[in-house]
């Protein structure tokens, strides 16, 4: 026990908020980002801040399973999935693609409304949480909703998938922020599902490309109600 430990702990508690804010800012950045390559970098960074936040919570609450959780997240979200995404955009030859996005300011404004909504929704619940990071539940919900928004406004397959994965980041963060991490086996199961999901999506994108010569989701609007 060192005499400066309380200060360090306060600092660390605040650093959770810092990483949480990073998560949210990155979610906003992803909405506005046009280049696919940068989008993947942003996603990797978001994964990294998730890992950092989980590590700090693990250290402060002294819960060992959170270290494992952080390790899984690191392997999956910072190493494996970004590598898969890089290989995917190389093989699909869309590495330098720039997507035209309309109405970035409007989308951002909707995003801000979503954040306010999420904070309002989370406030009464955050008070009930015993976790040290409870204030961040609103941020977690906000980044889930922002990723959701990104999936709606994007017209290309790869950004939609990154939106999907970023939503998963928000959910993992919610699990660490509100509770002290889900049971281990459940977390492993979720991680496995995410990994299989991204592999299947990769297969899909090749199928879509083969069929339409493009990864534009707008081709996928033939099935409509008559």
């Amino acid at each position, binding site marked *: 026990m060192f005499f400066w430990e309380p200060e360090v702990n306060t600092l660390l508690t605040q650093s959770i908020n810092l990483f949480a804010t990073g998560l949210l800012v990155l979610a906003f950045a992803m909405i506005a980002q046009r280049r696919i390559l940068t989008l993947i970098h942003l996603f990797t960074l978001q994964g990294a801040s998730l890992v950092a936040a989980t590590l700090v919570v693990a250290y402060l609450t002294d819960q060992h399973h959170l270290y494992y959780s952080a390790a899984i997240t690191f392997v999956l979200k910072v190493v494996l999935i970004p590598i898969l995404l890089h290989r995917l955009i190389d093989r699909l030859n869309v590495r330098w693609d720039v997507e035209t996005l309309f109405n970035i300011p409007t989308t951002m404004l909707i995003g801000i409304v979503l954040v306010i909504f999420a904070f309002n929704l989370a406030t009464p619940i955050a008070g009930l949480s015993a976790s040290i990071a409870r204030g961040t539940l609103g941020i977690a919900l906000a980044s889930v909703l922002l990723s959701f928004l990104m999936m709606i406004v994007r017209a290309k397959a790869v950004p939609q998938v990154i939106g999907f994965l970023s939503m998963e980041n928000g959910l993992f963060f919610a699990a660490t922020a509100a509770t*002290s991490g889900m049971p281990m086996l459940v977390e492993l199961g*979720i991680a496995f599902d995410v990994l299989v999901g991204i592999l*299947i999506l990769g297969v*899909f994108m090749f199928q879509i490309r083969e069929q339409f010569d493009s990864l534009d989701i707008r081709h996928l609007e033939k099935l409509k109600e008559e």
Partner: protein
Amino acid sequence: MEALLLVLAIPLIGGLLLAIWGDREVGQDLNAAVSFLTLAAAVWLTAMVIRDGPLLVWGEWFFVDALNVFLVTLTAFVGFTTSLFSRPYMRVERDHGKMTPGRMRLYHSMYQLFNCMMLMALTTNNLGILWVAMEAATLTTVLLVSVYRTAASLEAAWKYFILCGVGIAQALFGTILLYLAAERAIGGGEDALLWTHLANAKHLLAPDILSLAFVFLLLGYGTKVGLVPVHNWLPDAHAEGPTPISAVLSGLLLNVALYAVLRCKVLADGALQNGLPGKIMIGFGLITVVAAAFFLSRQRDVKRMFAYSSIEHMGLMTFAFGMGGPVANFAGLLHMTVHALIKSAIFFAVGHAAQKAGSQAMEDIRGLIKVSPTVGWGLMLGSLAILGMPPFGVFASEFLILTTAMREYPWATPFLLIALGVAFAAIFSRVQPMVFGETSVRALAHPPALLPVFIHLGLGLMLGLYIPPYLNDWYEQAARMIGGG
């Protein structure tokens, strides 16, 4: 205990074996054999439950009680009959060049893994594992929906993946909130998400958290149930995938998702004590029934039409469970059972009919009764059964739902009656010329498997006239457990 292990292990091992041998000629039979063994294990499990009562095994992580025992048997049974139907159906698809050996292997392997994941979702006591199994069930079927690699099927599968992915992510958020409530009430740890523990402590769960958690869980799992307005994936996935997959999606997956909603509703009801979850379900159910009936009347593709009919029936069940109480819950459970049996029978008949006509458009399917009387009668009787004609089981359950609605929620009854009327007019007027009239359809190389159709219809008929005593007991126990009303 051994029986439960077999129920889960047989389809898993079968799926792995079929990943190797699924493309051989024998793959079709192997698939049916694995499904038969699963059914045998499920029957054994059921017999054990009838003899010894509910099971709670493996550190309480898996359980079989009145609410899931009949669903396990139903899932294994429909899984088996669908594998029988799939044999001639997929042979024809292969002869038409739609299925390459690689696709056959994928199809058979994923079919078994899909069954395994549904059985796991039904028997697990852990709400986190339930989520994992539901997501895995989605993943196994995504590649099956796009197996023909046509533009339309790719679109359907993409929609299915993204919409259900978003939906199931909401369910995960709901599960996290549930865990948060559990942590406060019974302490965290590995066992905090066990349903039996939560159900024992449901009065202690924080109402604020549970109300939000239930909304997320209902929206999330509701996406898979096919509740309007988050139903968009369902008609596309049913219409574009192979027909055996449409049959198991409609007959089984939707039930499993509704089962997940029910488990969550029990907890939310216990914590909130104000009937709010039931009211939300009534609202969603009613909107779903009415919207689906009107969408249904505008369809031209036969599989799409019956997919909308599934949405309508899932809405009706959601409505029934929303009303709650012994009678409505009983009716909902009965409806789950008969709908699964009859809707899959219809898809079997529709599959053969569409293959004979070479098209899924209803105007191309004419005069089935002349070429193949059994397919024609199967489709006709199935349609009458699903429309709620007595003496089929759907009539009994719909009658109970409607009379309860008249007593408890009289304002909802006209909406239900109009929706059922519109659905009746729409389906009957389209099925009638498909079955009777002049024909243009041709015979096929492989004789259709019609035994499953008539076994299903027979069971649907039986449940309308006579419910076996132990099934009746389970329904009543489960109805009490679901509560509400």
